[in-house]
């Protein structure tokens, strides 16, 4: 179907013409048609666009001025509400609150030393009475490591480019300090892990300390020889073995670890290093997972690979 070029039926065609500056809508309504004026091309549309943008910007800036005040007012209301709740709660530091008079607490403190053999009751709670929670926690850490690997692990062709992105290049002070400090940090971490049942510490804090030491070495020497010890393969083996041994040991203690059944893990003398039954091996397993995962996080974030 052929259309008369002079005749414009569709609204959109009118609009396009007007945008190109061929005529004013007001004049077109009166039936007059002007010749095309190239200098007016897009002028009409630009004018509308300009005004719309200005209106929008004014609205946004008004909202942006209001927004911080609203946020602070909301937070103040939240503080007030929660302070009222706090004032209704049992007082701080009292022994007769429901939290502190629970039967569980008396059992943990009164029988903890006898049943678990751990001098540190918190270690006894998290690795003996509630060891299942800690297994789940290790798996959360492992899952987070897997998620980070999925997101940031890079292909091999990008490896060369990434070499330049190391943190510090041949810093003498950092290297000397790392050489002196690294054995001390690792030793302290191992001490914290091994004495988790005798004092404050345990697998998580000790593993984080060892991971921090490994990160320091890796920062100073740009991975260096550490890459040969901890790579993707050995990381998989260490974490898998640690989690599996944790699960197997804990399964054994679920079946015959309580109520006077015969078990090969005895509580031993409280206070000795080889005591408290399963707590020491479980702490070691958790510490290995945490140390390797912390180093793995650092390595993946800087270089895109372990």
């Amino acid at each position, binding site marked *: 179907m052929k259309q008369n070029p002079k005749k414009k039926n569709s609204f959109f065609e009118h609009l396009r013409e007007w945008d190109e500056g061929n005529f004013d809508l007001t004049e077109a309504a009166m039936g007059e048609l002007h010749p095309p004026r190239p200098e007016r091309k897009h002028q009409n549309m630009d004018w509308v666009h300009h005004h719309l943008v200005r209106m929008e910007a004014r609205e946004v800036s008004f909202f942006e001025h209001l927004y*911080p005040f609203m*946020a*602070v007012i*909301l*937070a*103040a209301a*939240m*503080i007030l509400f*929660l*302070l009222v709740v*706090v*004032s209704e*709660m049992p*007082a*701080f*530091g*009292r*022994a007769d*609150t429901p*939290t*502190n008079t*629970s039967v*569980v*607490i*008396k059992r*943990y*403190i*009164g029988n*903890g*030393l*006898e049943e678990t053999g751990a*001098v*540190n*009751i*918190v270690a006894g*709670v*998290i690795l003996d009475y*509630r060891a299942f*929670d*800690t297994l789940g*926690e290790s798996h*959360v*850490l492992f*899952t*987070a*490591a897997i*998620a*980070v690997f999925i*997101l*940031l692990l890079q292909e091999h062709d990008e490896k060369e480019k990434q070499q330049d992105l190391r943190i510090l290049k041949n810093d003498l002070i950092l290297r000397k300090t790392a050489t002196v400090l690294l054995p001390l940090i690792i030793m302290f971490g191992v001490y914290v892990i091994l004495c988790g049942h005798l*004092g*404050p510490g*345990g697998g*998580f804090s000790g593993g984080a300390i060892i991971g921090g030491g490994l990160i320091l070495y890796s920062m100073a020497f740009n991975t260096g020889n550490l890459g040969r010890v901890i790579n993707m393969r050995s990381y998989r083996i260490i974490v898998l073995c640690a989690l599996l041994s944790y699960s197997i040991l804990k399964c054994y203690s679920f079946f015959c670890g309580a109520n006077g059944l015969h078990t090969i893990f005895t509580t031993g003398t*409280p206070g000795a290093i080889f005591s408290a039954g399963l707590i020491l091996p479980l702490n070691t397993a958790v510490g290995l997972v*945490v140390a390797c995962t912390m180093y793995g*996080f650092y390595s*993946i*974030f800087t270089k895109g690979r372990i």
Partner: protein
Amino acid sequence: MTQILWNSRILCVAVILFAIGFVTLLLNRNLLKKVIGLNIMDTASYLFLTSLGYINGRTAPIIIDGVIEPERYVNPLPAGLVLTGIVVSVSVTAVMLSLTLRLYKRYHTLNIDEIYRQVHLEQEEEA
């Protein structure tokens, strides 16, 4: 009421810190700042939990000299729970930071509004 609040001032500080973390989440468009704000909220709730288990005049739950009276030690349960929480929060931080890096690689900005705008534009182009 002022006296009650003064006696449990650590709980009040935990509440205020929670609100500060919330405001950090609301006010900043930068993704790294939002991660820090979430971390502050985490530690505030841990402080609240831990201070519920504190009892005046008692010592940490590490048995000294073989004394096993429950009247001598503070509540060990909140400490065990919060220990789990700290490690979970560091895992969450690592995942959030890796997501931030991926977003920066794709959109070349840390501003959440700008990222949202670009995502919107991409969706419009696809449609």
